[in-house]
């Protein structure tokens, strides 16, 4: 056991006891039939998005969306080491802060970010005009500060990465946005839930993650998990498409505000 001890990190106490709550404060067990409270089934949670917060990066963005907080920085286009490529390459790396999820993540031994990075690269690549950047690489780093489900991280990650790439002034086809829809089995009928929370997604029959470019009406990636009928799948995708338009508004607005803060266009002068 002594070999596994990492001297660079502050060790946790050997014994710990979970806090005891009053029964009244306990949240209801997340079951498959919980009714959504506080918002409608087709209502997404508000998004906070801001660009240009990381000064040393060529472009950056920060998003808070539901239970997810991500900081994204973009470096490039910058020269790439040989072998030379006629098109630009997109390097995307997702990293979780140790405190980003519950239970805490073991540093370095975490394998989840690798698959998330691959999925995110797949959704993001069609939005960038990579043919304009021969022999160059565009490096995108996403640091997840808070997370609930991997699907929500992907959805928010796609939106914030688009914002950061646009902030870096890199040529794109359109802004990419992510949206999530889940199909929940209620006692009597099935319900399509937009932007599901952790409990809702856990008890869902299936879920769809949609990457899209709402400005062009194009879809970059669909990820469907679970078992869903064809008609329901179509309904879920349509819900996700209409939700992505709202996300696009927030995204475009934050870019315009970011530009105006630098004294360009609109109200300035």
């Amino acid at each position, binding site marked *: 056991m002594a070999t596994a001890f990492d001297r660079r990190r502050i060790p946790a106490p050997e014994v710990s006891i979970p806090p005891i709550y009053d029964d009244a404060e306990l949240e209801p067990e997340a079951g498959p039939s919980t009714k959504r409270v506080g918002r409608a089934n087709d209502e997404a949670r508000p998004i906070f998005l801001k660009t*240009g917060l990381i000064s040393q990066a*060529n*472009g950056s963005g920060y998003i808070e969306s539901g239970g997810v907080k991500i900081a994204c920085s973009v470096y*490039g*286009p*910058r*020269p790439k080491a040989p072998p030379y490529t006629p098109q630009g390459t997109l390097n995307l790396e997702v990293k979780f802060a140790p405190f980003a999820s519950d239970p805490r993540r073991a540093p370095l031994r975490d394998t989840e970010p690798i698959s998330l990075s691959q999925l995110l690269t797949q959704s993001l690549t069609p*939005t960038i*005009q990579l043919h304009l*950047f*021969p*022999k*160059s690489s565009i490096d995108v780093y996403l640091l997840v500060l808070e997370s609930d489900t991997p699907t929500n991280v992907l959805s928010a990650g796609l939106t914030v990465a688009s914002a950061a790439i*646009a*902030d*870096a*002034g*890199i*040529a*794109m*086809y*359109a*802004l990419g946005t992510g949206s999530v829809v889940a199909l929940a089995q209620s006692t009597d009928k099935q319900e399509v839930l937009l932007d599901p929370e952790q409990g809702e997604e856990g008890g869902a029959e299936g879920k769809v993650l949609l990457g899209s*470019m*709402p*400005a*062009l*009406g*194009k879809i970059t990636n669909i990820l469907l998990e679970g078992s869903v009928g064809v008609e329901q799948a179509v309904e879920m995708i349509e819900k996700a*498409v*209409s939700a992505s*338009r709202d996300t*696009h*508004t927030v*995204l*475009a*607005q934050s*870019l*315009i505000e*970011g*530009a*105006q803060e*630098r*004294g*360009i*266009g*609109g*109200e*300035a*002068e």
Partner: protein
Amino acid sequence: MFTIKNIPPSSTQSFSDDIPSTHRRRPAELEAMDLDEDEFGAGPSRRNIVTPGEMITSSKEYMRGHGTYVEETNVISSVTGTIERVNKLISVKPVRSKYVPEVGDLVIGRIVEVGPQRWRVDANGRQDAVLMLSSVNLPGGVQRRKIESDALKMREFLAEGNLLVAEVQAFFGDGAMSLHTRSLKYGKLRNGQLLTVPPQLIRRLKSHFHHIPPPCGPTGVDVILGLNGYVWVSNGTSQEKREGGEGFDSEGVYSDKNDDIPPEGRQAISTVSNLIRLLAVQGIPLTDTLIEESFNWLNQNQLPPGPLTQPDKERMLAEVVGIEVSA
């Protein structure tokens, strides 16, 4: 005079019917520009910002410029920025991006690698710039073919980490720039300090070498505004040296040694650097007159040396530039 037709919704555009009004005002915006064409570009307040993927206008009536692409029959923006139009050419100028070089631009760069017959230079572009051994002036001043012994001595002239000022000579096939220093104005930099500002803030000027005369330090301060956003602030030199005339020390061109700079000279360099940083943070385009005026303002107000206090910064910006800034 031409008018803009309403484009019938194509298969892709029908999707974006629900896109909020902020994303669909482009044709009307352009029409407004047409009405007073003579005043186009007179003030930035009239311009509008577009985001990537936003339709600007029809490609049947306009040509696409930088920052746009054509999809079906629409000109679509590919960056976040302001719409610019020259007659029928529509382009979008990005709010912030890497330096986009043009032949003849004056740039400041840093050597990153010494290679065969060439140096690789970081000039804030998409690709590292290249400075060929054949496009530099060697000590001695005589124009001659470079021979093998020159190639072996390349690191003595310019080593990794050295800064230089050069001009963009040409482009390679992949868009990387080729530099030259074939003028006595160009070459290795010393006796000063490098600043990095967004390249959009440097305008193309008649001359990018400026001299702020004393009382700004005992010998004045030289400022070189590189179009790639690198700014060199250094101890002032004499008139002849600046213009590379008589008495020009051709042997000292590749010297690594800084001259002795008195404390007042160092103070002046950092004062000018601070002013440039302050203007750059506010997104104000840098010109020689602006830098000199802001220094004169400091001088008239008899402010103590050292960084400006917040109220002084705001006063300076209000009185010299004429913008209101609140913390």
